[in-house]
């Protein structure tokens, strides 16, 4: 922890998020008569902050690897009740845009510990990750169930912890059910989106994935399969068993490669 040395740097908007000219210390505001007074007020406010908390925020150090943490339920068009831990797509999607756009970010590590969730939201996140031009590595910890599977395989390279599990099961309906053939066809279509995405972005065949989906005798309350650690690798869904160390090492190697390729393009 950094200890306060009695010096306050002026607030300079380390994230570059403030609109231009809005900073209190920017030269544009210098002709303002109230400026000195305002600054004084600022100083005293900062002093108060430090007095109350005893710590000062660390100088902003930038990491070239950013991590996207997807935990709990993947929340889509409907807000889930308060007791759910959820990852919202309105947070993740703009973050992915920012990652793609930011010149200092060179790679993304996707950390997954999810129980699945909304199909549309999950597929949206998965498509965004898959279409990033920067190197992406995913790491499944704990669980990467249901809609977590397409998100895990969306990264260019995927890891799974030895104890982590992935549940593959059919999509069931929530909400209104019409007992007409169209309902079945609609569900089949939704499921096809997931199956196709997983087959396209990993080494598993779609027929094999469907086989795992409809296997009986593995799950107590459902049909389907639970894959643990290296079983997911054996089936070709995930590339390698590993943890955070191997994931970062792989990502760094991919970033090196990416830099070289970009350098070659420029020449």
């Amino acid at each position: 922890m950094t200890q306060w040395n009695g010096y306050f740097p002026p607030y300079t908007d380390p994230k570059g998020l403030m609109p231009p000219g809005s900073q209190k210390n920017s030269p544009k505001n210098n002709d303002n008569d109230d400026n000195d007074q305002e600054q004084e007020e600022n100083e005293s406010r900062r002093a108060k902050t430090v007095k109350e908390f005893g710590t000062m925020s660390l100088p902003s150090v930038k990491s070239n690897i950013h991590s996207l943490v997807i935990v709990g339920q993947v929340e889509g068009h409907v807000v889930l009740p308060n007791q759910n831990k959820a990852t919202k797509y309105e947070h993740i999607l703009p973050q992915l845009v920012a990652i793609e756009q930011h010149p200092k970010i060179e790679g993304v590590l996707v950390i997954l510990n999810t129980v699945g969730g909304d199909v549309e939201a999950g597929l949206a996140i998965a498509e965004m990750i898959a279409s990033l031009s920067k190197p992406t590595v995913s790491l499944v910890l704990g669980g990467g169930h249901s809609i977590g599977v397409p998100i895990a395989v969306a990264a260019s390279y995927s890891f799974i912890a030895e104890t982590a599990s992935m549940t593959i099961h059919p999509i069931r309906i929530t909400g209104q059910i019409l007992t007409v053939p169209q309902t079945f066809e609609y569900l089949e279509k939704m499921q096809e989106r997931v199956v196709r995405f997983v087959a396209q972005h990993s080494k598993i065949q779609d027929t094999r994935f469907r086989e795992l989906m409809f296997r009986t005798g593995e799950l107590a309350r459902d049909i389907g399969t639970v894959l643990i650690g290296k079983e997911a690798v054996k089936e070709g869904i995930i590339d390698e068993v590993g943890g955070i160390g191997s994931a970062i090492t792989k990502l760094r190697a991919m970033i090196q490669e990416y830099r070289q390729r970009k350098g070659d393009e420029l020449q």
Partner: protein
Amino acid sequence: MILYTPVQLELIFRREDEEKKYPETVEAYVNGVLAVIKRTGLREGYIERVLSTDPYDFLQPDLSPGTNVVFKAVACQNTPAADFRDRL
């Protein structure tokens, strides 16, 4: 909406009266970083989760989960978003 999850739906959607037991969550900027805050009162709460992709943001001691924060009202004239980020 189709939920694709092994979690039973009864666990995801609880009865309304049970829901009141859980505190309201809001999002706010703390030290320039977007965080999910659980409300404990009209103007105070504690940090539940940091919504950032920058791993170094998680090293800020002020942003550790459970830290109490106070919401601050800010006058709207020439208000940069940063005013909201300053903690009281």
